[in-house]
């Protein structure tokens, strides 16, 4: 499959009378976007706001972050199976608005959502302090159940991102990148001497609003399968989860998966990037066994020499990670696993809930239990009602001077397990 990504660099977002993109500036009339949100009768209101890098702004509770894109050539549309038809995407041409994001926020569950600071120490940890953020805080109709509210906000975010993406349809890209993978036989003929390497992407699927969707399917219900890594660039995988926001993958990170990006950079040079394998992290042991068995089998059938495995989340998914690693290695396929750590505030506890000698090549996104102080910022988009109960906070989080004492866990993307975060180690 061959996909061109045309990048449209966005240098500013401004509210205006008419919505358009001109000279790299996104002009938005919120009145154009409100009907897109409120077409869902489960939502009764929405407030749009803009947060720019360096501003004294805190966004919370953050649900999802989405990059606006539009498909201009090739089959299908952005977010297939969710808001576009289920055509197979990942070929043709797609335009992406770089440097900006749509951020969905609201008091959906409260303890599940994350924090994005646009300045200060918090901004150093979240990748989304560097994007111009169009934030939408959605208000539900009265007595709406949490899972209906979650779905309504999730889908509204995709519709708004797609609507903004449409503004770029006739623009010329500032830069174009081409991503191309081969068929199995073609790859062997083209790169006979290169190792065959795959990417195993584990998706958060714990239920209770901790889910991920693939072409509209709840990934709890998938059996591991193969994607062309270009499919995710068109939104084939979207997020429906954000609890302990540091190591969850917002939709934006699926669209801009850094492992896929880096593997494409080496494709045809140091290895043949064969495909992406997706699997889940379910709450039943039999599901964990089945999915890891299938994943290892796919690696074998594809005759891979090695894979990179990325996890999403922590705790019991550590077992899915270790099962994948162990079983794939047992098929004679080398693995590198990418995870993060919950090693306690002092960093002295066991980092993962499970372990195995086969996991001898591990990349970490950092210790999510590390404590940081986030100073009071001038403006809050959303509300601070939940900062004491958010996962990674405590009843002592909100201090008298308005600052927050929190674990990195609360910060969206801080210890991302695809390496999208900003932490590194010597």
């Amino acid at each position, binding site marked *: 499959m061959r996909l061109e990504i045309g990048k449209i660099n966005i240098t500013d977002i401004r509210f205006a009378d008419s919505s358009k993109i001109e000279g790299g500036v996104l002009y938005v009339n919120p009145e154009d976007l409100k009907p897109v949100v409120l077409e869902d009768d489960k939502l009764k209101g929405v407030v749009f706001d803009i947060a720019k890098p360096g501003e004294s702004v805190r966004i919370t509770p953050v649900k999802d972050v989405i990059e606006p894109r539009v498909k201009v050539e090739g089959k299908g549309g952005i977010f297939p199976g969710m808001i576009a038809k289920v055509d197979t995407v990942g070929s043709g041409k797609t335009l992406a608005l770089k440097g900006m994001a749509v951020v969905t926020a609201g008091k959906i569950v409260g303890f599940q959502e994350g924090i994005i600071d646009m300045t200060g120490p918090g901004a150093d940890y979240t990748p989304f302090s560097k994007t111009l953020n169009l934030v939408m805080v959605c208000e539900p109709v009265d007595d709406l159940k949490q899972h209906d509210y979650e779905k309504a906000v999730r889908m509204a975010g995709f519709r708004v991102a797609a609507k903004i993406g449409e503004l770029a349809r006739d623009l010329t890209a500032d830069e174009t990148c081409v991503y191309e993978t081969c068929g199995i036989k073609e790859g062997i003929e083209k790169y006979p001497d290169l190792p065959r390497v795959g990417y195993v992407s584990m998706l958060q699927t*714990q*239920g*209770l609003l901790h889910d991920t969707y693939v072409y509209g399917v709840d990934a709890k219900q998938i059996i591991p399968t193969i994607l062309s890594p270009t499919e995710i660039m068109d939104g084939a995988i979207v997020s429906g989860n954000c609890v302990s926001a540091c190591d969850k993958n917002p939709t934006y990170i699926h669209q801009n998966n850094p492992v896929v990006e880096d593997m494409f950079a080496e494709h045809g040079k140091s290895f043949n990037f064969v495909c992406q394998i997706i699997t889940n992290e379910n*709450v*039943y*042991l039999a599901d*964990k066994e089945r999915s890891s068995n299938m994943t290892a089998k796919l690696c074998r059938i594809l005759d891979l020499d090695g894979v990179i495995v990325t996890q999403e989340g922590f705790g*019991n998914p*550590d*077992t899915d990670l*270790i*099962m994948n690693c162990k079983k794939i290695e047992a098929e004679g396929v080398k693995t590198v696993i990418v995870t993060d750590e919950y090693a306690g505030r002092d960093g002295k506890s066991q980092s993962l*809930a*499970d*372990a*195995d000698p086969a996991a001898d090549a591990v990349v970490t996104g950092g210790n999510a239990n590390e404590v940081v102080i986030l100073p009071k910022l001038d403006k809050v988009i959303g509300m601070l009602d939940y900062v004491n109960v958010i996962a990674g906070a405590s009843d002592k989080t909100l201090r008298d001077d308005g600052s927050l004492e929190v674990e990195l866990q609360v910060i969206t993307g801080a210890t991302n397990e695809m390496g999208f975060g900003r932490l590194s180690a010597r």
Partner: protein
Amino acid sequence: MVKELERAGLPVVHVCTVTPISLTVGANRIVPAIAIPHPLGNPALDKEEEKALRRRLVLKALKALETEVDGQKVFED
């Protein structure tokens, strides 16, 4: 917890969903539970069925407690 109680001389059964973690951590008598959000029951079942399920689980755990083990053992059905 499991290991400390055993160290104090009490036999322990660890009822848990993710038995591989229990094995990694070092429990000796392990009884598989239902699922991570509801280890000891299943809200998808009706009341009577669920009560029977819970009773089976407790009886199985008691049985495991009475069983002499030589190293780690997972008590499968």
